[in-house]
């Protein structure tokens, strides 16, 4: 019976994930072990009593931070699908959601460090404080001149002995000023075609030559930063992956980001749609039949996406995140916008009021989402951040449906000769 379940799940994963499928199915024995370890952690370190860092440290030491990682690096070497078993117990006992506390750390840095760091010592050095959230991480990818065309980025890394000297400007960096480490993509070979001249580094955000400035956005807040890097130095041992292989390393990271952004809550009616439904319920005097139909369309789309995520989760009990995560990101982003547009149309003249444009400090703790009008404004970023909807549709078309790529004017050209502006 156990083996037939394994075959079923393996087949299903192949169907959904396709080429991204890797072996490593869960077994009942592994499930039992994860369950036992998680109960042991919460018994010894009550998350309601001990500090968050201590609790998360205990999780790491027990191999429950990311169960599919190797033993000794916060994992148990079991199926990734069992993470939900561990999280259910740990968070059920009042433990924090670590992805919320250290989003780039858990969502992007951990899998990249695990896969690409040059030594086991470095992995151990970086991963435990990441897991405990003592070290917050940020991502230094986008630049003013390189958004969707990320591979065109200009920040330079020049080798000087056993160190790299970094110069350039990064943008849209959340948590930069709180971060200990940054995942940096920089150009090590301007003579190579753009994808081939990049390398991937871990930058010390507290070192000399790194300056963060809050970047104010249309809501009035500053969730993100600009990071100016001037002659900052990175030891070569903090390079992840081979010199010139930065693009490939970054792609594994981006896939993790997209699947993290694309994953949504599993309870019916939860998430952004709850804002619209609650507003609808609270304001019966504003109801019209046309608005009711619009809301039911939005609710149905949210529900269809929720069921799609659930279907993908049920099938993908193992394996790496693949391009199917792009559906969730794209649908969720566009749905958020339509949901808040609906809220604005429901509110009418009330909707055009605001709470305050007094400058909000970057990354205050507390409620970042604010009143519905702020959420409406914030939702404009959803179809841009983490991959624009246009890029998402290209990914769906090319990687999922197998359509040919678009013509590229810069194909094969040395990066330094590509027109920019």
């Amino acid at each position, binding site marked *: 019976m156990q083996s037939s379940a394994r075959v079923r799940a393996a087949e299903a994963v192949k169907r959904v994930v396709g080429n991204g499928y890797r072996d490593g199915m869960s077994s009942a024995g592994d499930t039992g072990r994860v369950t036992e370890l998680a109960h042991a952690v919460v018994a010894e370190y009550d998350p309601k009593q001990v500090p968050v860092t201590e609790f998360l440290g205990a999780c790491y030491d027990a191999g429950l931070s990311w169960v599919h990682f190797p033993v000794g690096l916060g994992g148990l070497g079991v199926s990734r699908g069992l993470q939900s078993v561990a999280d259910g117990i740990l968070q059920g006992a009042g433990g924090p959601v670590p992805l919320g506390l250290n989003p780039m750390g858990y969502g992007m840095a951990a899998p990249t460090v695990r896969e690409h760091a040059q030594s086991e010592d470095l992995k151990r050095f970086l991963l435990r404080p990441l897991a405990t959230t003592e070290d917050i991480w940020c991502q230094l990818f986008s630049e003013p001149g390189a958004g969707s065309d990320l591979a065109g980025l200009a920040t330079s890394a020049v080798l000087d002995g056993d160190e790299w000297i970094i110069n350039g400007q990064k943008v849209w960096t959340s948590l930069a000023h709180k971060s200990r480490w940054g995942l940096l993509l920089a150009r090590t070979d301007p003579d190579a075609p753009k994808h081939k001249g990049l390398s991937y580094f871990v930058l010390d955000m507290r070192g000399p030559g790194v300056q963060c400035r809050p970047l104010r956005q249309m809501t009035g807040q500053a969730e993100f930063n600009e990071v100016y890097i001037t002659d900052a130095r990175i030891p070569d041992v903090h390079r992840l992956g081979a010199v010139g292989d930065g693009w490939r390393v970054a792609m594994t990271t981006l896939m993790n980001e997209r699947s993290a952004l694309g994953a949504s809550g599993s309870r019916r*009616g939860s998430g952004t749609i709850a804002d619209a439904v*609650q507003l609808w319920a609270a304001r019966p005097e504003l109801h019209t039949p046309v608005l009711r139909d619009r809301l039911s369309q939005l609710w149905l789309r949210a529900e269809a996406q929720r069921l799609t995520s659930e279907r993908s989760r049920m099938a993908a009990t193992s394996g790496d995140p693949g391009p199917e995560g792009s559906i969730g990101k794209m649908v969720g982003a566009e749905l958020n916008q339509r949901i808040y547009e609906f809220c604005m149309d429901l509110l009418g003249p*009330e909707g055009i009021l605001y709470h305050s444009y007094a400058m909000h400090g970057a990354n205050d703790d507390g409620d970042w989402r604010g009143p519905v009008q702020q959420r409406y404004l914030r939702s404009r970023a959803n179809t841009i951040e983490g991959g624009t909807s246009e890029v998402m549709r290209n990914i*769906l078309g*090319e990687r999922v*449906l*197998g359509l040919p790529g*678009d013509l590229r004017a810069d194909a094969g050209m040395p990066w330094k000769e590509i027109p920019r502006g």
Partner: protein
Amino acid sequence: MADTGIRFVFDAEQRQLRAAVRKFCAESFGETAARRLMESGETFDAGTWHRLGSELGVLAMSVPEADGGAGGSLVDQAVAVEEFGAALAGGPLFGTVYLAIPALAACPPGRARDELLRTLADGRRTAAFAVADLAGAFDPDRVSINVDQDRLSGDAGRVVDATAAEVILLAASGSDGPGLYAVEASEADRTPLVTMDPTRPQAGVVLRDAPARLLAGPGDTGRIINHALRVGSALLAVEQVGAAQHLLDLSVEYAKSRLQFGRQIGSFQAIKHRLADMFVELEHARSTAYHAVWALADGSDDPALAASIAQATCSAAFSRIAADTIQVHGGIGFTWEHQAHLYFKRAATDAALLGSAEQHRSRVADLVLDNTLAHSGAVRVATGHP
């Protein structure tokens, strides 16, 4: 309830079933067979139908073996129906498989019911389901047939599959409420109608003192009919998914092979993004259809809500994908010789049957929005005062 396995995951037997039905459909259905039937004026191929029931046993998969079915679950039936949809399978699937068999399976055992269910399951006979629905739900006020001493009279209106059917199931009002009856089609006046989708024919059905057999009395009829309509809605949704997948595959292949401006047209973002949107619509439709099937099979969700979510989503998705298929194909997609119009017409037909997307959306609003109570955790509205 039957064992339905892991939600959303088809097991090895179901994958084998899918392969077998797909192979059968490739030989017996598809564009060529649909055109042959259309041109011959026949409504379906009785020989093929009988093989579906007897050789493959895929007409009554969720009916217990004791009643002549395959003893499986609605999930098994859905696997077969998805393949039927992809191949534009002909024959009275809608009347017999989606509605009459689920209705009979829910009827209390009895000689008329048992015998009819058995002969429908093995493909010896066919049926139409002539109960007028209100957006996929039973409405006793719409029953237009009266019963008097087991004889039925009245105008049953337009009935899908009534031309092919040997037996017609109807609701008829007696002195103590509506009952469910079976009438031999030969006892009814049937007027074949020209339908937009010739592969899903209809006839006007009028009864004049037609002898009928009682299948269920007033106490059970509403429940049985609603059950059949929900199962029918779920299976119709699955058919829509199968057909839509076929069209997406067709469109993607065309976008890769058609060259204009010296390039594959699929390399243009205008085409690529449309296809990506079609893919999203299809995956959403698939999720809601499978959800409805599993929910009806294992009781894990409100059946009325699950069926309406599926119908609202799948009708819209299939219609959109069929329209976009024509657009992606350009001129050739508008010709009679191309298969796109066959599916486009099926999409229009399926969207109108058992309730439109709009009607189901409205029911979802009834069930979800109108019952939501405001609570204090609602999102704040800025008032202009900091």
